[in-house]
């Protein structure tokens, strides 16, 4: 029976699409200032930032942006000869739940297929406003969800040696805290079960992302 079942994150009502769209922070990293319709996207109500180069990988790994649209060439030669591909791998290795879109005109190049495969989605240049809106909207619908982020938490907790039953219990605590709109409760429930300090930081950061989708 439902009322005996432990509360799960998927039982709670997340914010409506329009609100999540308004809160979603999109970062475009591209050396060409005209490749993306920044002004028009902002007019359409999206929060879009532009970096001509990767200034630092840390904010990208820490999840400071919800969707990163990353060019393949000329954005990170100072970080690695692999350029954008290296940045994508650094982000995904540190934070698999981070949504990254491969953005390039190099889709013809077989050697870059790894870049397209590792990313969550792709955008092939040149792009128009309709394509960009379609992409961001579909990512908000499919990946900016509590389930997507919780799957990452489950993977990390499993790696920490937690059993499915223990993870279920953590989910119950997190869901209860979300229901009570207690952000500290969310962080506390996650922090408590992770021994490794680095992993705890990552798990809590994802927990905060989940809480944001419920308006906390």
């Amino acid at each position: 029976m439902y009322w005996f079942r432990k509360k799960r994150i998927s039982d709670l009502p997340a914010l409506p699409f329009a609100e999540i769209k308004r809160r979603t922070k999109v970062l475009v990293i591209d050396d060409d200032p005209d490749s993306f319709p920044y002004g028009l996207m902002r007019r359409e109500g999206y929060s879009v930032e532009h970096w001509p180069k990767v200034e630092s990988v840390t904010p990208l790994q820490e999840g400071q942006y919800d969707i990163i649209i990353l060019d393949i060439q000329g954005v990170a030669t100072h970080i690695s000869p692999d350029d954008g591909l290296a940045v994508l791998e650094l982000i995904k290795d540190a934070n698999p739940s981070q949504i990254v879109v491969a953005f390039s005109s190099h889709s013809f190049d077989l050697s870059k297929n790894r870049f397209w495969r590792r990313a969550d989605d792709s955008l092939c240049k040149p792009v128009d406003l309709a394509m960009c809106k379609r992409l961001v909207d579909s990512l908000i619908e499919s990946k900016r969800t509590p389930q997507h982020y919780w799957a990452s938490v489950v993977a990390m907790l499993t790696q920490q040696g937690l059993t499915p039953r223990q993870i279920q219990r953590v989910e119950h605590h997190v869901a209860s805290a979300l229901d009570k709109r207690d952000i500290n409760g969310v962080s506390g429930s996650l922090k408590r079960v992770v021994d490794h300090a680095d992993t705890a930081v990552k798990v809590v950061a994802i927990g905060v992302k989940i809480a944001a989708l419920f308006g906390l």
Partner: protein
Amino acid sequence: MIDLVRLLCPYPTIDDDGKLMDGFLVTQPNVCRKCADKLCRDMSNGDTSELIMHKICAKGLSCLLVRSAFGTLTCNGILLKEHNLSCPPQLRKQIQENKIALAELQRWYQSLMTAIPVIEGQAGKNVVDAVNSLHDVTTGVSLVMRNAEAIITTLPGDTDEARIEGAPDQLKSLLKSVQLLHRRLLMPSYVTNPQSASHGQKRRTPIYKIFHRMVRLFEQLAAKKNVQIRMGGYSIATPPCYESFETIALILIDNAIKYSIFGGIVTVLVSDTLQGAVHVMVGSDGPPVPEDMRSSIFEPRVRAPRAKEFAATGSGLGLYIAKVVADAHQVKISYTCTGLNADGKIGHNVFAFDIGP
């Protein structure tokens, strides 16, 4: 690539269809030219070896199946000195020049295996260099797109579609041309890297809307040929598609206009099926594809002879690209031609496919 291997082969060869070809050192013996059976193509009972398989044919000559990463090649009409002692003495005398040692063949094979990746690498590099030069074009088109979008936003209307609809005709034409150019620029990738047709995530796609938008983009081009485009059907299904799907609509409508008779009608029909799929059909009156070419029209650089008369320009890559994108969606495009006129030069050509559910 196997065609290149055949050209570089010093020994006579035979292809799957039984077509003989001289080697650049050793030619086809008369006995093979006259042979009706061409049983050398069947190597099923050959002496198995990892890369080179040997068999003696009914006439007593050696046949070799050479396997490589680029395909298999059958060398025929030779006499392998060490392995073929059953060749009748009379024939042995006749084909003196076709006697070779296995070591010679192995040496050729080794050098070929070293050379081909180098040739392939260079060819690939040339393609990448050529397509790379499109980067500046892409940057230019991006700039035009940004300016076009900026103009659209100044127009009255609540949505982009409403704004474009209310725009002056000349501006509308300009916007359509830019959008068409933009979509065409994405096409070379599917030739050089077919995997790019399935890059990204599949999204629910309104097929009717995609074709309708494409019809609108092509109206001006069609009018130049006095061709009318009629769109019909009813579809609300939105099967999951990659971004590349739009290319199929572009190619099929473009071809229908290009190969339509002057003053003809192009019909585009998009309708939902009872099984939940979407049935798409693009038809026009024009030159039929000859029966013997129908199985190969989706191969690269294949153009029917009468198609060249109708449209002198064309790379023969359009339907190949459509097939690459269709394959990425597990879709099969079919071609049929009905209602041939008296001289058989004009018929009703239809390209159709089902997508989803």
